[in-house]
């Protein structure tokens, strides 16, 4: 039975938890799989280390934590340093390439970067960098389907911001598809 452990790390205010919610919702409500989200954050509302752990599986999820993720998504340098040792030996790293420099990358790890903040700024709001990352995740991994991810996205963002978020998602998705050589 397939199971994918995902760790998303960044700073409070970047939308780390929302990214996890969108992925979990896409898998568990719209793709018909099971998903469990665990969140960890410091006492500060903004700027402290923040991370989400998402398990997406065909079978119900028993142990809810992700000790050694299959996929690590990082939006801050600190998150990279903290979580890279936990990534599986043949794991996948997705990173915000202008915020994170993947130093001493373990040899078996595949890594893909995206200038998510720059793309978000081009779209008019830096705030949607997390949605660019969600699209990037969907594009590179295929762990959540495009249709499910877009439905989950639209049901999770504030009214009036749908087209901005959808554009952010699609830019990330297309960037991801092009890096893995998909048509």
């Amino acid at each position, binding site marked *: 039975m397939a199971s994918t452990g995902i760790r998303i790390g960044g700073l409070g205010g970047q939308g780390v938890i929302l990214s*996890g919610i969108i992925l979990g919702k896409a898998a568990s409500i719209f793709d018909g799989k099971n998903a469990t*989200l*665990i969140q960890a954050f410091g*006492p500060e509302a903004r700027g402290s280390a923040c991370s989400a752990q998402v398990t997406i599986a065909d079978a119900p*999820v*028993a142990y*809810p*934590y992700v000790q050694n993720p299959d996929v690590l998504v990082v939006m801050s340098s600190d998150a990279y340093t903290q979580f890279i040792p936990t990534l599986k030996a043949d794991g996948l790293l997705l990173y915000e390439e202008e915020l994170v420099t993947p130093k001493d990358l373990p040899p078996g790890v595949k890594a893909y970067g995206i200038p998510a903040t720059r793309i978000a700024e081009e779209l008019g709001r830096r705030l949607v960098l997390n949605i660019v990352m969600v699209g990037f995740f969907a594009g590179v991994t295929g762990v959540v389907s495009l249709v499910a991810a877009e439905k989950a996205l639209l049901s999770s963002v504030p009214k009036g911001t749908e087209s901005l978020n959808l554009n952010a998602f699609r830019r990330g998705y297309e960037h991801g598809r092009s890096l893995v050589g998909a048509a």
Partner: protein
Amino acid sequence: MTADPKGVLTGVHFLDGDHAACEGALAAGCRFVSGYPITPSTEVVERFAQRIPMVGGVFIQMEDELAASITMLGAVWGGKKVMTVTSGPGLSLMMEHLGLAYITEAPCVFIDVQRGGPSTGLPTLPAQADMMQVKWGSHGDYEIIALVPDSPQECFDLTIKAFNLAEQWRVPVFLMMDEVVGHMTERVVIPEASAIEITERRWTKKAPGEYRPFDACADGVPAMAKAGDGHRIHVTGLTHDERGWPALTPKSQDKLIRRLTNKIRDNADALADIREDQCEGADVIVVSYGITSRVASSAVLQARAQGLKVGHARLVVAWPFPTTRIAYLATQCRAMVVPELNLGQMVHEVSRAVAGKVPVRLVDHAGGTVHDPKVILDCILGAAR
């Protein structure tokens, strides 16, 4: 009867346990919550405060937990289905009013989202260390019901069950969550209102002149009067007679306290809810509850993969403790393993029920996170030898 559609958010949601418990309360007909927000339970009251104006009801943020729990009891006699929500430090303050709720037979629900203690302990991190406090923390002899969910879906389902049991038995009912279950997000299916069974308050059919507020029906539970219908009631924390008036004698104490405790003790087997998985013919049975049951099930699967016969019994109802069933399971295995996020609480109840028939091994944990499944696995392997 079935649920009032106004409180039922029918659909498929991706919710954490705290939010799901709030939706369970609204679906169950809870229309009054007084609380003093505390991590990791805050999201329950936060959502209730946001939702209740649309549903029709009251949320009051009180000045502290004593005020929250006593205000809740006032609303019971005003006719509402009620709840308060807290975590360990607040629960300690509420112990006084737990006793008052019990002796006045006020149907009410306490949600306790457990965090590491004692005192302020670990505000944002899990434990299961209030399990004995809810049973023994208030003074005097008393019995409560405590339900222990292990997922957001169960937070929804068991909150409804908690309200129904509170009305059926007129006792305080606890939903014993923990920080992980409270903040863990999963799919939660909320059915149509017409598919949710609700226990209505037991209202008296007696005329005002004939009604005695603590005159029990055959099952030991008295009916309540609707405020404003003309019945005269007297409610006191003192030992009282059927009229509710103080009756401070050994005889009335014996009569009242035995009736109150027997409501639960005589029905302990019927109240038991244990989810058993391959317990028949098992060499080792793991007894667990709450979030730890999910960690334990991971260890159980690994042990079975190594060829061991391992059963898993999950307590959905922790109090009253299912003594009869655990005693039976002890005759079916060679050892029991009890993992819990404390340094040994429910394991004492398991040992009492097992009564020396087989060894009982505790896998303890001081809290702050969940067990590493490997530690539980090692204990299972050791017990199987």
